[in-house]
């Protein structure tokens, strides 16, 4: 075997190992609330905001709270460190990154998915006219 292949292969192997460890330590699983509780670590939960339970932003503590419902229908209070995410009210679903502690989903990030339901629906103005 030529030395250049050996060098190439060992460099690639080292990089692959580094990549694998980085990937392993930073991978965040998508889970429902039951699994999130069982795992006890940071996961991403896809669900919706339970509108009837309201929402609140406490400016002095910089904490935003609301109740979410996962795809299985289970509900949990969410505490996000930070302000209300953009477009929260009109989001069709939310992706909450966090971990469950004492029955509360302690979130570090909330992604809002904007309604694509409006795409593909005729406008209200049309239906009224």
């Amino acid at each position, binding site marked *: 075997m030529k030395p*250049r292949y050996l060098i190439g292969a060992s460099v690639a192997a080292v990089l692959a190992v580094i990549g694998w460890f980085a990937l392993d330590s930073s991978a965040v699983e998508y889970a429902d609330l039951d699994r999130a509780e069982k795992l006890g670590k940071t996961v991403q939960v896809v669900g919706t905001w339970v509108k009837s339970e309201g929402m609140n932003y406490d400016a002095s503590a910089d904490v935003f709270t609301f109740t979410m419902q996962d795809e299985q229908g289970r509900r949990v209070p969410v505490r996000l460190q930070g302000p209300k995410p953009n*477009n929260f009210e009109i989001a069709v679903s939310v992706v909450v990154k966090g971990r469950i502690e004492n029955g509360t989903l302690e979130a570090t990030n909330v992604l809002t998915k904007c309604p694509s339901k409006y795409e593909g629906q005729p406008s209200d*103005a049309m239906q009224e006219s």
Partner: protein
Amino acid sequence: MIGQILIHLLFGLAVGSTVSYLTAWFRADVRLARIGRALFSLMAIGLVMAAAMLVIDVVQHRFEYTYVWNYSSRELPLHLLVAAFYSGQEGSILLWTTLVALIGVILTPYARRHQYETAAMSMYALILCFLTLLLVAKNPFSYYWESFAAQGITEADVPLNGKGLNPLLHNAWITIHPPILFTGFAAMSVSFAFAMAGLLKREYHAWINVALPWTLFGTAVLGFGIMLGGFWAYETLGWGGFWGWDPVENSSLIPWLVSVALVHTMLVQKRTHGLVKTNMALAVAAFVMVLYSTFLTRSGILGDTSVHSFVDPGKFAFWILLAFMISFTALGSWLILSRRTDMNVNREDFSPTTREFMLSIGAALVMASAVFVTVGTSWPVLMEIVGQPKVAVSIAFYDQVHLVLMPLIFIVNALSLLVQWRHTTRSVFVRNLGVASAVTTALTVGTILSGLASVPSVILAATAWFSLIVNAQTGWMLVRRSFVMAGAYVSHTGIALLVFGVITTSQYAERYHAVLVQGVPTEVGGYTLTYTGKEQIERHFADREKLRYDVHVSGRGEDRTISAILYWSDYNRRQSAFLEPGIRWGMMNDLYLSPKATELENVWNARTVQRGASTVNPLDSQQTITLERFTMPMEEGPAEDGRMRMAAMLSVADPSGGTSEVKALTLISTGAGGPGFEPVWTPINGGPVEVGLTNITRNNEDPTKSTGELAFRRQGQEIGTPREIFTVEFSVKPLISLVWIGVITMVLGFTFSIVRYVRLGR
């Protein structure tokens, strides 16, 4: 109608041009080449016409077209109407296709001059076959009544106004960022076409010289386009930073990284005739990664992992995109493999002390970065394919791998300049390395003394200094001879500056959470922030309420007003404000004011209570108050100067065990900014505390869960108007200007090199 026919015709022209060119190549037929060229020109003209038609349709508000209705409205100014042309999926595919065709028009005579026309243009036209087919699937000229036939819409129903453009896109950046990015994407097709042509012609070296200026052009333009996206995110979208490793950002970065590697390996082949197969493979990879990016971001499969919202393109377009990607990967691999023995003409191992060796290692490291970013971005999809639970990769992954890769890249980059092509004179190398190392050490010590503490950052900074010193030194010697020679060194310097910007903003940035009560100075991090008030701007538009929030910033040598913007738009039915940060730009640092929330001061000791729930009287903790129900306006008698009356029925429980009923009244006025509430104060049980109703939030899904806001005051107490509270994140971002300066320097270097290689190619 004409638009739809035109799109189908364009696909026909692309196929015709491909077939003519390909046959012309196989038969060496000049007449067929002329036909291929004519068909290609017709297609380019047709695409420009289609683009022009779409722009005209948007400008004339032809809402009978679904696309025009979906992405524009009558309120938009002209530059945004033009931008609306590519704001949706169909239009952006049309823009991309048109740019590919236009570049093709410039490419045709260039390729002919280098005897590459038939081979290269047949491949190039093949790309356009797929792009125009994609347009057939995602036709921007679909009619509204066709799109919504299922909902009973007929030709007679033409919408009066469009849905408008997402307010986040309402700025100058949308007029430049997408066209530049797509020009970069389009230019990636050129290197691919030339590589394929080289394989067809069995000319494994000549294509490098022909393709190099185009590869440089594509890399420069794509790099600039990516930066503009980062700038946009920073300046308008208020994402806080310029880069978030979001799938959409990554997917434009991956082809750029591959083409950066390609530029370097092409240079090696040009000088040494080595890396023949590598260059073929990278030219294919750069183009295929453009397609893969498009697939990732357009197919909707990354839906849950990105801040960008995706629209499902539909099954047909999904499969065309997939087929597009697979076909070109297969075509490229097949041509390379079928010619592999033929290409093994020049096999030699590079000596480790040569520039060609260092450049190869550097290119491999850049490719490693491309692979990591690809794996990270694709991870959720990959996991789903192998049946694992879906997993996303956090930003930490990209940071960690690049904290390893970037220092290696910088070191290899510097070494590649300290050694020479073919053979390095040992004494010269040792002397140059010694000088560069000494200067680097001194500068690194200075950096540590200035406060940089984290070890990975110090290593990154040290290697960036090393690269910067060596490039500046080499570049300076060349600039004096001819500045176009210095292109590479200028570009490398730009990258080092960019990385310094990344270090300063990630390690030295200060972030403060500030709750600003109007008129009350608040001190954070040595600055005094005062929210002075708001003013409505752009009043002439009926579809929006755009408010400028002024914050006076003083201290640390600063004395000025920074304004952030809250923007209520009909686009989302004013349900939630769009937020734009306020920025004080500076060479040394940026002050960045990012709005978080606004609310009114709670002067009335207000408590929000859900129907059926209870609260303790804030002014008399002995009393528990339960909100029993809301009354209807008609129960409360006629309106008073245009204002309705509503009330919350409360039951008040005393410690003695007695309960009594109290009616908390409010007067509701209706206005543009939503209803206004004025409480009618009512004493509780004749005691010293009065209660009033200051807000009602109706819960439409479940009216029993509507909430009311109850206000309390001592009898006769005068309460002033509540002041507004503006909550912000205020941050100081030191030397973030280096990020922009770095990228612009890099692009400038590319421009020098393009000039140089175009001259050499003549």
